[in-house]
């Protein structure tokens, strides 16, 4: 199955995007597949459960790389793709070995992506950091790559979006709010454009 890998800094809203976008695509029970092919996948989560498990405002709620399959309806027919949630990238050397291993897992997954969704929190000042720059420089020319400008519902997001467009010239940017689901139709279109019909 094609892999759309969701990558970005800590707490930019990657997990909420994965859960709510899966819901938007009509998914109700979310069965996340772990990275390791022998590990048992957990029972499907309801949307509420998935949000409780994965979404948090604190540091690295969850270090696992895991994916949930969704079907995008779009021009020409449906496209099935697995959305992979990854732990947020920290630019430096993490002190905790578990976090460092998680960074390595995340980058390994990005290297295999058929499609990268690079999430940025545009309501934050200086939303395009060193790690964002490096990752885009690495993958944007090699794979279909979309920058998802998240948290558009929050104050300051419009200026942040302008800042992002200046910092990342040439990259396609789709503004969304993972919370209100505004912009999800554009995101689905952008994704469908780079995925083959089932």
């Amino acid at each position, binding site marked *: 199955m094609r892999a759309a890998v969701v990558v970005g800094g800590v707490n930019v809203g990657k997990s909420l995007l994965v859960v709510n976008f899966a819901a938007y695509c009509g998914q109700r029970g979310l069965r996340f597949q772990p990275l*390791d092919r022998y590990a048992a996948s957990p029972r499907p989560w309801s949307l509420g459960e998935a949000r409780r498990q994965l979404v948090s405002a604190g540091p690295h709620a969850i270090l696992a790389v895991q994916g949930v399959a969704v079907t995008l309806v779009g021009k020409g027919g449906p496209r099935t793709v697995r959305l992979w949630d990854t732990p947020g990238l*920290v630019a430096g050397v*993490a002190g905790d070995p578990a976090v*460092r291993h998680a960074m390595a897992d995340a980058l390994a997954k990005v*290297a295999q992506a058929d499609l990268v969704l690079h999430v940025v929190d545009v309501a934050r000042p200086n939303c395009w950091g060193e790690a964002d720059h490096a990752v885009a420089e690495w993958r944007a020319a090699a794979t279909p790559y979309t920058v998802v400008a998240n948290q558009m519902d929050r104050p300051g997001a419009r200026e942040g979006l302008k800042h992002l467009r200046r910092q990342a010239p040439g990259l396609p940017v789709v503004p969304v709010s993972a919370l209100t689901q505004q912009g999800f139709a554009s995101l689905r279109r952008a994704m469908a454009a780079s995925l083959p019909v089932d």
Partner: protein
Amino acid sequence: MASGHPGGATPDTSAEVLRWLADGHVSTVEAVRQLRRLERRPGAPAPAPGPDLPTAGALAALDALVGLREVKRQVREICAFVDIQQRRAAMQLAAEPHTLHMVFRGAPGTGKTTVARLLGQLFRDLGALPKGHLVEVERADLVGEYIGHTAQKTREVVRRALGGVLFIDEAYALARGGGKDFGKEAIDALVKVMEDKKSEFLLILAGYPREMAAFMDANPGLRSRFAIHVDFPEYRPDELAAIARLMLAERQYRLAPDADEVLAKALDRRTGVWHENAGNARMVRNLMERAIRRQAVRLVQHTGPLSREDLMTLVAADLDEVR
């Protein structure tokens, strides 16, 4: 030259970059830059395989090693065994508990650490080890200074290795020292954790063949727990030359014909640096890195334009230290 590792070396493969990242040798940003550099090389290997071909990456890396035919065969056999035991367990069939701790016998620079690292990845991909990372230690990391200290240090090292591979280099040195030495305490502590944490990590004891044989004989408690012995022969001169060319090609360098000849001759000679370190791939790596630095010194002194060719080529003069 791009930096990023304490030794000043650059990683040769994406797998190596990710390992350095996990081990804390490079920052996330530096790791991403290195991944980009490696992919931009012409002829760079395809990105790591997806979950459908879990071990292809590490197996390909194993195959890419020069020589080591028997080692490669043994590793494949071990992996087949582990894979089938995992599948049997998954279908509720009785599975052999994997007490797959190993002894790697060979001189320094014969590829023991390299193969141990790949084994960790293979076991991880097979689902036999959750992390598959390598923790490489030696006597000083295990043996303490007062009673109780050793057991504590050993437990700490094992804790770091849980889920992966604990690689003890020159393990026979644990038995050094005699009476008031704490090496014995480390051995006892290891035997104990091997019982307590049976399949939670893979223990590999490495060292010179003769010393390791004597060491295992003197410690029956250990011997009975190591069924797998892997021998790493010293590399032949032609294998070392192939390793040198491989290491250079990975860094986008190559030897001019005169340099290649110097290298081949030096490797065959029965005296000098090469002879004293016959069979040692690490020495080859160090000397090639030195040759790369000498080339740089030679080229900056050069007036006039430098071609891509010039920048890639090591000539005989760059190998002066080798002769």
